[in-house]
């Protein structure tokens, strides 16, 4: 059995993160000492690593809760997990396109400005942003 500090080090997270995971019902200590300190087993270490890897793939804690539920549900199958992964990919692709649109908008602004030491009152980027604010409020 491991203390919270030890299991945190083994899994590469902070003790605060573990307390947060517990609050979100993603992990629970295997037991507690007489003094009330949390104790974790090897399964907890595997679970924390699972959570971290899933987060790295873009899954939110709520998604991970669902994945962990599917993992333990007898009626669930690989197809359910695959569907979740495909839906996550769709969300990421949407975000990528939104970021690309932002990047293109910034390209337009950057191309319209030569920089230099002109006063900010004459800055085309600030002017363009200011004008777009007028357009929004009209």
């Amino acid at each position, binding site marked *: 059995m491991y203390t919270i500090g030890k299991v945190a080090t083994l899994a590469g997270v902070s003790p605060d993160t573990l307390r947060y995971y517990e609050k979100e019902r993603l992990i629970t200590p295997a037991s507690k000492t007489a003094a009330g300190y949390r104790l974790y087993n090897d399964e907890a270490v595997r679970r924390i690593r699972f959570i971290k890897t899933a987060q790295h793939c873009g899954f939110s804690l709520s998604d991970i809760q669902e994945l962990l539920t599917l993992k333990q549900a007898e009626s669930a199958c690989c197809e359910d997990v695959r569907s979740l992964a495909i839906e996550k990919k769709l969300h990421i692709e949407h975000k990528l*396109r939104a970021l690309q649109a932002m990047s293109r908008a910034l390209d337009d602004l950057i191309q319209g400005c030569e920089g230099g030491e002109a006063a900010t009152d004459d800055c085309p980027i600030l002017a363009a942003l200011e004008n777009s604010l007028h357009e929004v409020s009209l």
Partner: protein
Amino acid sequence: MTIKIEVIAAPGCRKCASAQGELRAIAASVLGEDRLVWREVSVLEELDYAVSLGVLSMPAIAVNGELRFSSLPTPEQFRTMLTTLASC
């Protein structure tokens, strides 16, 4: 005028496959086979198209290139949407 209905789903999705038959039959009965263009879109093979439609969950249904259902509709919801569309 034909009406194009696209079901965007993951290949191998049993839930999607079982619902598609029923929804297609409803579409054929409301619109008639000659007005119906039915297409099953694999989200993995046409990811860009699915994203351009705004699909975030599956199965989703697009009508004439516009996302109408972001999850599986009930047969009643689907029939109501088609009836409204057919009367326009």
